[in-house]
């Protein structure tokens, strides 16, 4: 229509009622649209990083003249987040070399560096899905080095009864069962708590709480636990 005569425009121009904005000024304001919006949102306290991100995309596409609907925008944002997350996850796993774990477990592994070392050594076994996964045993009263030793002993005891790849120290979603527990020291005595859980339905398969006179006895007791655990796990699997 602008190519043709527009009587309304002529009328307004004649009576000085029009105030045309030059094209370069329109372009300038268009380029500032997103920034003014962010300023408004920040001043009113309505700004949030997520909304800011969506708005940035929204105004960017508008500036580029791309017609985009909100659902498409959401799709693009999700794809971007997934791609970014995927890349970040790849580099993270490549650095840590441990299968995906919960924050809680990572924290535990940091507390048990030796257990982590063992986990790294046997990471290929974990990926091959060990029957049972042992979470590093916890304690508030026993030395970390001793706890690492106890965790490793328990794993060895289980592997001695159930087979070399029966257990592994770490947490893996690939395993059906996980073992967790703690050991506390009271004077010269040790109290051990061991629990085996079916990861598929969180049901407890095996649980024991026993008192031992010494550390050596505790480690010997593991062989007994191991026999019971292997029997329960294999019986449960059938």
């Amino acid at each position, binding site marked *: 229509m602008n190519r043709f005569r527009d009587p309304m*425009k002529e009328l307004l121009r004649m*009576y000085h009622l*029009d105030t045309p904005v030059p094209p370069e000024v329109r372009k300038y*304001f268009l380029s500032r649209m997103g920034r003014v919006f962010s300023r408004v949102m920040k001043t009113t306290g*309505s700004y949030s990083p997520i909304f800011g991100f969506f708005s940035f995309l929204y105004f960017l596409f508008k500036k580029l003249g791309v017609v985009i609907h909100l659902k498409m925008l959401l799709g693009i944002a999700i794809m971007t987040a997934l791609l970014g997350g995927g890349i970040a996850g790849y580099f993270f796993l490549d650095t840590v070399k441990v299968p995906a774990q919960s924050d809680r477990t990572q924290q535990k592994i940091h507390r048990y560096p030796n257990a982590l070392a063992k986990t790294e050594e046997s990471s290929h076994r974990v990926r091959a899905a060990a029957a049972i996964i042992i979470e590093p045993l916890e304690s508030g009263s026993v030395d970390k080095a001793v706890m690492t030793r106890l965790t490793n002993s328990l794993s060895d005891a289980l592997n001695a009864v159930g087979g070399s790849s029966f257990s592994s120290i770490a947490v893996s979603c690939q395993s059906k069962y996980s073992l967790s527990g703690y050991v506390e020291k009271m004077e010269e005595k040790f109290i051990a708590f061991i629990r085996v859980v079916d990861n598929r339905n969180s049901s407890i398969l095996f649980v024991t709480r026993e008192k031992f006179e010494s550390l050596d006895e505790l480690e010997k007791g593991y062989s007994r636990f191991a026999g019971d655990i292997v029997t329960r796990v294999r019986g449960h699997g059938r």
Partner: protein
Amino acid sequence: MLSYENKKEFRQAYLKYYPFVFSAVYSKTGNREDAEDICHEVFIRFMENFMKIQKRSGWLRKAVTFEIGNYYGKKAYKVDDRADIDDYKNHSLHAVENCFQDTRMVIRDVIENEENFTSDIEMVLFELVSIYGFTLKEAAGYLKMTRWQAQYMYKKTTERILQALRKKGIKGLEDLL
């Protein structure tokens, strides 16, 4: 504070009215930086009252006038430049001296009368194209419509305005032009 859904609605409204607001402000101030600051103030006020406002274009027009006065009022205390504010206030009134003042007032009444527009968007489209010199394609882009929809809407609005002018005793455009 607005909910997430209301914020999204506000963003869409912002996109629709931003060109209208900055054009209105810039045409009165002629200064990009001042216009941007005033736009900012207008949209803060707009957001604060977003859910209460019925006729958004009318509300924004009044807010623009108010915020320009407010902005230069504050600025005047800083730079002691009150004469310029008075100039601004009187500028539009004295712009056309000895030039069909009565007719001008009639036309102004008609194009500013909300009753002559069937919707808010129609009013914004009309002002963007006929007053601020936007092309139909540009205006259509901001108002989320096709160029042809904008052209049709603009044509209908123009016809309605001319009809309103006829009612005021102005029979044809030839009488005015």
